[in-house]
């Protein structure tokens, strides 16, 4: 087992990227709350809905998936899931959906509160469970739902037909929102948002690619936290600045030979799937105590939203991880594994996310073969703590480590 280097951790510098990113993530909730109190309309928004639209219109939105992750990480996943299950929702449904539907009913969770919605923004480029989840919210709360349908893409490129289909829906969503909220779309403001979002994305991609250094200047679990800002705030200038700061810190760590992974980095793996939020400490300690650093995840690639114009933006949303085919998804991961000198792949078979986990058996087999690395998977759930076994996780991680050790 790797020895923890017993150094006193300095208090968090308020100017550090970590502190800034934490503030931005928290502000996403507080500013929406403030908007609500001013009498403005607030939306609930799915994570891969084109955030540029509400941002350009100046609309406050919050993200139920983020909220559910926060609630689960703070230990209330089971309580909330039980509420929606007692309403008749099956425990086979995504736990984010179950938590969110429960929150819409009880309207309070001290673990992570957020304002109630006046409208809903739904995009199914990550899954179709989203549609029913938001439809039910819309019915229960009697509020409008704006829906963008992005079909699963069997090709590597986005065809002109798909682009036309999606573009028309983006335009229609803008029109609906203008009508609903009285806010006006401005091309000038949109350009600004697009530029900032590009800046934030470039910094994120560059920061996450610092994992190519050996040892990596960061603990991959950091990314899981910082990612919240990429989801909720990438169109904001503070986010761009904080991500650039993060990049500078990682480069500096590399030069100084230090890392936020505070033990000796003996092995480097890729982690596949959403984090097991209710068991974050257990899953991260199981790796860290063995000197295993999770240096990369598909999130490193997924939030690189870089585009030049409206059409390009539409294409970017057609290419988010869950909307693309197995081969394309696999190739993206192989690239990450090779660029970051990954020695093993740990797959979270997430009982909540059928879409993500469904083709993972075959995809991880192909990745393992292409990169000549061992693959281990464990059962878990992003937000329902009842679907995880610590002993099972531990054995598989140890097995993975023993193979990597034998191959050194």
């Amino acid at each position: 087992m790797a020895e923890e280097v017993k150094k006193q951790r300095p208090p968090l510098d308020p100017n550090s990227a970590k502190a800034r990113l934490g503030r931005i993530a928290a502000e996403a909730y507080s500013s929406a709350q403030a908007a609500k109190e001013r009498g403005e309309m607030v939306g609930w928004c799915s994570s891969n809905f084109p955030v540029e639209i509400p941002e350009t219109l100046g609309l406050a939105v919050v993200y139920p998936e983020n909220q559910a992750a926060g609630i689960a990480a703070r230990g209330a996943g089971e309580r909330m899931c039980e509420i929606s299950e007692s309403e008749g929702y099956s425990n086979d449904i995504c736990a984010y959906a179950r938590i969110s539907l429960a929150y819409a009913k009880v309207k309070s969770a001290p673990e992570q509160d957020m304002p109630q919605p006046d409208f809903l923004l739904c995009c199914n480029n990550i899954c179709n469970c989203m549609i029913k989840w938001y439809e039910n919210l819309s019915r229960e709360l009697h509020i409008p739902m704006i829906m963008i349908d992005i079909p699963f893409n069997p090709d590597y490129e986005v065809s002109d037909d798909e682009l036309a289909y999606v573009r028309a829906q983006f335009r229609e969503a803008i029109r609906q929102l203008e009508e609903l909220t009285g806010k006006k779309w401005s091309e000038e403001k949109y350009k600004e948002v697009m530029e900032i979002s590009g800046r934030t994305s470039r910094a994120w991609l560059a920061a996450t690619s610092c994992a190519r250094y050996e040892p990596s200047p960061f603990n991959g679990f950091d990314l899981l936290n910082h990612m919240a800002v990429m989801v909720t705030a990438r169109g904001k200038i503070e986010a761009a600045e904080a991500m650039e700061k993060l990049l500078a810190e990682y480069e500096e760590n590399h030069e100084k030979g230090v890392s936020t992974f505070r033990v000796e980095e003996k092995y480097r793996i890729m982690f596949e799937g959403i984090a097991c939020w209710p068991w974050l400490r257990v899953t991260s300690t199981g790796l860290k105590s063995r000197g295993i650093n999770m240096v990369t995840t598909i999130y490193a690639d997924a939030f690189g939203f870089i585009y030049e114009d409206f059409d390009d933006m539409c294409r970017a949303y057609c290419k988010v991880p869950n909307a693309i085919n197995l081969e394309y998804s696999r190739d993206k991961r192989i690239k990450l594994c090779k660029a970051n000198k990954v020695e093993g792949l740990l797959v979270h078979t997430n009982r909540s996310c059928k879409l993500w986990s469904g083709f993972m058996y075959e995809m991880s087999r192909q990745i393992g073969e292409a990169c000549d690395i061992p693959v281990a998977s464990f059962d878990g759930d992003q937000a329902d703590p009842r679907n995880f076994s610590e002993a099972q996780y531990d054995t598989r991680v140890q097995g993975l480590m023993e193979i990597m050790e034998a191959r050194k």
Partner: protein
Amino acid sequence: MYTFGIDIGSTTSKCVVMKDGNQIAGKSLLTGGIGTRSPAEAVRLAMEDAHVQREDLSAIAATGYGRTRYEDADYQVSELSCHGLGAFFIFPGVRTIIDIGGQDAKVISLDDRGRMKNFLMNDKCAAGTGRFLDVMANILAIPVGELETYSAQAKEPARISSTCTVFAESEVISQLAGGIEIPDLVAGICQSVAGRVSALAKRISIVPEVCMSGGVAQNAGVRDALSEKIGHSILFSPYAQLFGAIGAAIYAYDKKIKEQ
């Protein structure tokens, strides 16, 4: 040099004393695993069997679900690696190991030096594990050790279509009530386990020779059904249940030699 391997599973405790990493000097196997008094008792019995004392042991390695809680161990190592090492010691030609234990099933592939290359384990479901057989034996009121005898007498194996242990339980009860003979039901149960595990095995490329380890390996009904489903003959050793402990003792030996 004597080394010691202890495999603390969910339902059994197994110990092996090895001399110079290549000779089994003593062994023990008790029902009762993690959280019971069996591990301590198994340790005592294996040492007695090998005529050694604690101070004669140069190193101890623990494996199995209880490995982290066994305080006297110098090393703790996963049962995946240990089953690989143990099986390779008994069958030097083995490349694929199918282990069906009390609460999980795993398929391990080895390289030609006996090192683990990859592994797959069952998901959280109990189907395809020893627990499934325990539950079924319990319904039929026959000892789990006798399943094999009953299965051999089957004329027409029953079809158990549910993979879920709870569903299969009611399926077996209703077939029993419908007058299906016990041997036919037992054969159907064995085939159900084999079907589940062979699907797991086929996800890793099966390279012969193939052997089985773990408690369920004793059951020829499951073994034969599995062999048919994967299309390879399956090696069996009376030591199958001890592979984990043998592997742990070999691991302890190798580590000690390296350290010296």
